């Protein structure tokens, strides 16, 4: 019996003009487009320098800025007013104001002020830009100090240089960080929400009525819906792993078996969520809206973009109720750190509990309908 239901589901899915293409397009989007688009490194910040000193050192500082890949030196003006005008026109994101007597003060007093102003409408750009520029100015100061020590022969304050190294992702490549997490979103859509929408559309079209008067059992009906999407989900997952290795050389450091086991547990969790939603929705519109609601909240508090540790305490508590959070952690840990079963069992157990709870709920709410 189940076999015919699955056969029918596959037939319908592949006959659909849109869904099979989307299923195939998704992994490519996840690999080729999203990692670049979700990049949070800020580059090409436009900077205008207000040079009121016109000394060789002030020039050297501006050149140093321009040489950085983070900044584009777009303008070079003489007064504060001119600088603000460029700022307000939106032609520049940041201002670096070098005070008069910059060189003289540095030579004589060993200290001089510069002022950095950043357009903080885009907080990310403003914040990171100020940070980068600060670092460059610091670097400049260190250079000057080092030169002066050499020429004067004085042994002043020893310089402390911090060298940072990105463990598990040496080049701090944003793509490597994003791909495992984006795969989670992909699985959520394919194995959680797609079957839910399918069931609701049977309700809306009324075909479920005709099925309900046949001897087909509820459990067969539900499995007949889920198994095709689980199959498709695992196929797409494998495809994505292959493509990630091929395109970015991103090969999971962890054991593939552990990864597939985690995927299976995750799939059953989100399927349960999808079933609960489908049980409570009678129209596609309703189901879609509920799905959007959950998807947006789940993504925002999953740690996909922003680290959970930097969320306020109450938001961190919310993340415990989010299956995405656990699977994103699992994926990043197994992919990048090569974590094994002993490192991720807590997350797996949490997913397992959610799988039981959601599927149990789905089963209970289904029975009530009869």
């Amino acid at each position, binding site marked *: *019996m189940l076999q015919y239901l699955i056969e029918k589901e596959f*037939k319908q899915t592949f*006959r659909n003009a849109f869904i099979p293409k989307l299923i195939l397009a998704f992994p490519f989007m996840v690999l080729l487009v999203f990692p670049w688009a979700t990049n949070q490194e800020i580059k090409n910040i436009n900077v205008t320098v207000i040079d009121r000193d016109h000394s060789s050192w002030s020039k050297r500082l501006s050149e140093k800025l321009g040489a950085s890949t983070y900044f584009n030196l777009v303008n070079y003006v003489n007064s504060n007013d001119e600088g603000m005008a460029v700022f307000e026109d939106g032609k520049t994101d940041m201002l670096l104001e070098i005070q008069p007597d910059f060189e003289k003060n540095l030579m004589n007093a060993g200290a001089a002020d510069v002022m950095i102003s950043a357009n903080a409408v885009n907080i990310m750009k403003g914040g990171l830009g100020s940070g980068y520029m600060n670092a460059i100015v610091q670097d400049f100061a260190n250079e000057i100090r080092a030169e002066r020590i050499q020429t004067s022969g004085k042994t002043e304050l020893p310089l402390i240089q911090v060298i940072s190294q990105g463990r598990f992702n040496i080049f701090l490549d944003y793509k490597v960080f994003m791909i495992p997490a984006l795969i989670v979103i992909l699985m959520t859509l394919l194995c959680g929400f797609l079957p839910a929408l399918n069931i609701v559309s049977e309700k809306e079209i*009324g075909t479920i009525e005709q*099925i309900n008067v046949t*001897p*087909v059992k509820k459990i067969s009906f539900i499995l007949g819906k889920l198994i095709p999407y689980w199959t498709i989900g695992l196929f797409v997952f494998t495809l994505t792993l292959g493509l990630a290795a091929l395109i970015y050389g991103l090969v999971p450091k962890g054991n593939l078996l552990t990864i597939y086991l985690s995927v299976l547990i995750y799939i059953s969790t989100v399927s349960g969520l999808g079933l609960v939603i489908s049980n409570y929705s009678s129209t596609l519109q309703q189901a879609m809206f509920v799905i959007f609601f959950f998807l947006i909240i789940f993504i925002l508090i999953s740690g996909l973009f922003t680290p959970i540790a930097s969320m306020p305490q109450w938001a961190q508590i919310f993340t415990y109720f989010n299956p995405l959070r656990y699977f994103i952690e699992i994926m990043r840990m197994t992919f990048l750190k090569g974590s094994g079963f002993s490192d991720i069992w807590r997350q797996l157990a949490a997913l397992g509990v959610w799988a039981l709870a959601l599927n149990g709920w789905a089963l209970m709410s289904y029975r009530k309908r009869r």
Partner: protein
Amino acid sequence: METKNNSQLSILHSQLINKRYGDVQALKDISFEVGKGEIFGLIGPDGAGKTTLFRILTSLILADSGQATVDGLDVINDFRELRKRIGYMPGRFSLYQDLSVEENLNFYATVFNTTVEENYYLIRDIYKQIEPFKHRRAGKLSGGMKQKLALSCALIHKPTVLFLDEPTTGVDPVSRKEFWEMLKKLKAEGITIVVSTPYMDEAQQCDRIALIQHGKILSIETPEKIIAGFPEKLYQAHSENNYLLLLDLRKNPNVKSAFMSGEYLHIVFKSEADETIPNLKEIVPAIEDCFIYLMENGELRMEN
């Protein structure tokens, strides 16, 4: 009011079924029986509760109170076995629109653990008409063909009782006539048919009918007896402006009831017929007249 069949011969029993949706009493104390091999019609306007009753009898929803058995099986406790034995064609086309005619039929056959070949003789006459389009997707069929496919799918497991919820709604008059002929053939095969329709003229095709209104059964009888039970003389009349005539008639103290029926006015007088009314003529009442009379007066004159 209710005539009991010999219960040994009846295949469907319904006893005091009630169903309420919020403030609306969808069904109130519905009791009736259907004899084996009968074509039993549920006749009533939209919203009378016909579909709700069908959904209870086919085990899709639960009644608030009351009992029902179909083919000896309780609709609540024996629903699994029941579903193997009944065929149900919902009012709305409910087959898979993205599967072809043939695929739909095969799917429903396999779901019922049978094959198309096994019961092909039962659907042959119906299916033959859509067989030329068997590779066409069900969603692309015309209304009449969809209905034939739906009937084929509801029959493919050779049910003992066939439930048809408004099968002729939205179907052209020729196809409707054909459809009733098909039902008579199925009856000859020994299949009991419970059919609902809002069309009063189709009532005459049934062996017995139940007139249903606001969730209550007004009367259950053979169409002939229902017509014979019409207690008054019925007249028809018509003029250039039927609406004006109707208004006049309603003011006439001698007129007990007057209503439009197609291009004629149907009139019942309190005493003697008023011959001044244009084109007046005594007629034999139809089911519709009985239905309206029942709604207004509550009872027909039944002789058992």
